[in-house]
């Protein structure tokens, strides 16, 4: 968290720093099937975040990894060295990247029908080409589309988004500046069929009431995110159908 000395005003005239309402998502666009070699892929622009997700597998797991009961899910989250506005990122995976990879793998191990593919591995590569806050949520939302695009059987189409406390207000989907200076950033990953929580990380301070408010904002925003995920999956098929309907 950045020093509070030069903390910018995060709420101006009752609106957020980028003019949004507290329950308003940044613009979200997803395109499915963008990479040729991968079994499934998705490109996502969420605010100023630019994210690529690719899926390979299931394929034979290396012996040290193989589980005779189920497929192993191996997610890898990484940030391009030029993804941030300031400075130049170094190439070795940071502890932060390793942790996010781990919690992302956990999300998808829950939702993928892993028992159908013993001794195999499903790889999920998430590359943050440009970062603007909320990248782990953006990565999970894109990876979910890539997995469905690969035809991997899953119990649900997961989405993820951050709730936050900005001063005394609860808000959804923080951008980089809000992320740096807000009082709490609370990323959630949700299974929308039953609204169960698959990822929750947070430090800072919120009251139980504020947490409930964040949960409400997340579920509300989730309806929009889910629809955009589904539209992305349908798009290429509908485009081909439309070609024949016109005639």
């Amino acid at each position, binding site marked *: 968290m950045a020093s509070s000395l030069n903390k910018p005003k995060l709420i101006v005239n009752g609106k957020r720093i980028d003019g949004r309402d507290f329950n308003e998502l940044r613009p979200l666009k997803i395109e499915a099937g963008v990479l040729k070699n991968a079994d499934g892929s998705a490109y996502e622009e969420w605010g100023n975040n630019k994210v690529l997700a690719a899926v390979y597998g299931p394929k034979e797991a290396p012996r040290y990894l193989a589980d005779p009961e189920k497929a192993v899910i191996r997610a890898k989250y990484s940030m391009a060295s030029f993804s941030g506005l300031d400075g130049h990122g170094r190439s070795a995976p940071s502890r932060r990247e390793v942790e996010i990879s781990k919690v992302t793998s956990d999300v998808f191990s829950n939702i993928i029908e892993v028992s159908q593919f013993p001794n195999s591995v499903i790889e999920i590569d998430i590359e943050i080409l440009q970062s603007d806050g909320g990248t782990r949520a953006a990565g999970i939302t894109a990876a979910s589309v890539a997995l469905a*695009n690969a035809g991997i059987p899953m119990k649900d*189409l997961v989405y993820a988004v951050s709730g936050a406390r900005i001063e005394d207000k609860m808000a959804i989907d923080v951008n980089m500046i809000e992320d740096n200076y807000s009082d709490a950033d609370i990323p959630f990953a949700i299974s929308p069929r039953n609204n169960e929580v698959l990822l929750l990380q947070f430090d800072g301070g919120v009251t139980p009431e504020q947490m409930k408010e964040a949960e409400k904002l997340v579920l509300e925003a989730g309806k929009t995110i889910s629809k955009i995920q589904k539209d992305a999956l349908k798009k290429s098929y509908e485009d081909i*159908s439309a070609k024949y309907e016109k005639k």
Partner: protein
Amino acid sequence: MRKFVFPGEMILNSPTGLSYSYIENDKTYSKVFGLFDESSKSLIPLKSVWVPHIDDRVIGTISEIGRNGSYSVEINPMVKGVLLTDRRERQKFYVGDVIEATVKEIEHKTTAILERPMLLKDGILMHINTAKIPRLMGKENTMINELTTFTKTKIAVGKNGYVWIKGDNAKRAIEAVLRIESEAHVPGLTDRIKEMLENEGNK
């Protein structure tokens, strides 16, 4: 009426044993992104991961020759193919040979024991989305028969997604296969492919 369905979408209010679906709280949910036909209660994935079944005909490449006369056959990134032959028999295949064979047994879901091999000599090998293989074959093989008749090519289709094509018109057959792969979800596929083949035949 067919509609798009997504992983986690409830497709039926009662528990059913449909393929590519699961049951939770006595309701049926889709596991895949696919098309669901409410009247016929069929769920067809738009993309799928192939898992071997006994009697599946598959296409693969010989990758290794074992000392005991067995062959390793590459059929899929997840499933290993093993072809057992009589040790006294003369070596029939070489590394790099493409063969068609039938799944006889499945071990630990990751090894497919193959039998009844047939060498596919020369020709071109391509791979398509395995969810589209039933459409490429057509009802009672009508689609694939049409294809081979019109293009005068030899075509072998593996359930694992590999398609082997041989003949002077291979390029035309490849085009048709790719078109079937990309347009299978649009009604009227058979007529469109027929029209495409007939038109080109007159050129």
